[in-house]
């Protein structure tokens, strides 16, 4: 009987390597099999037949960042909640359920405050409150 080991990590590494090898294998196969007739027109970015104007790497609206921001905060909070959640039942069985519940709920209540704040300020709306103005920059 093998004791519990680091072996659990081995399949992850193996699967990742398989993915990389599969990618390179498929790529290699397509290099061998596929025709290669490059032309300038073929390698222009697709814009429904028009000549592309400028680069696509242009500025984007800040609301994408705000969504990412709210996401990362919630992500981190859920990360912290995971170990507590996984011992919740154990603590409940030991008779400390009330204590665990108080800890857990006070943590979540602050999370709820965060989402309530963003909701009230309109960060969760995609369109309405976001009228970007350039004039504001000069204030």
């Amino acid at each position: 009987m093998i004791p519990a080991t680091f072996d659990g990590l081995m399949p992850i590494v193996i699967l990742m390597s398989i993915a990389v090898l599969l990618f390179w294998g498929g790529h290699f196969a397509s290099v061998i099999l596929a025709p290669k007739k490059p032309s300038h027109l073929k390698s222009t970015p697709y814009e429904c037949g028009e000549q592309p104007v400028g680069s696509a790497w242009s500025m984007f609206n800040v609301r994408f960042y705000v969504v990412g921001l709210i996401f990362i905060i919630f992500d981190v909070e859920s990360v912290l909640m995971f170990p507590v959640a996984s011992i919740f039942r154990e603590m409940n069985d030991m008779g400390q359920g009330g204590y665990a519940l108080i800890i857990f709920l006070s943590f979540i209540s602050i999370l709820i405050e965060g989402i309530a704040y963003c909701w009230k300020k309109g960060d969760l709306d995609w369109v309405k409150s976001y009228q970007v103005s350039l004039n504001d920059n000069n204030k």
Partner: protein
Amino acid sequence: MFIQILFGLSALLTIGCAIAVAVTKNIMHSCVFLLGSLIGIAGLYATLGADFVAVTQIMVYVGGVVILMLFAVMLTGGKDYVSKAQNLLGLAPNMGNKWTYTIGLLVSLVFILTNVKLVSSVIKANPAKTFGNEFPSTVNQLGHLLVKDHVLAFELSSVLLLGALVGAAIIARPRKQ
């Protein structure tokens, strides 16, 4: 044996990508190399038996911070802000003249020697412990630590995150006319 291979792979990924972050001129590529470095560090955590921290590393950095950084790069133009001043290997003029470089080299030599000394003393103080293949679950212990010993830090971190959310939202939010 496997753990040494995992360690080698992760260390290579970590160091290679960290150096690549420093020498790449393209900021977008830097972000992607940072991603590689962070995944490598997650692998290193795994070799240390810190499974929960390793997965947290992947979850927060890969899923969150790197995407946020890529967004920020896009929002600040998405162009390569490459000038000679940013190029480390080009030895940009505004970073100093040959004297500053010489002094920097000497200082870093001293720094490295001190560190080597430090590390070697640490090794002598703690002769390489050999660990078996035991891999106890850290999750439950971490949970107990979080709700008992470190409960204040646990609760305060949520306040910190609330503060970060509110502050960053106020700063980043586009101003209304």
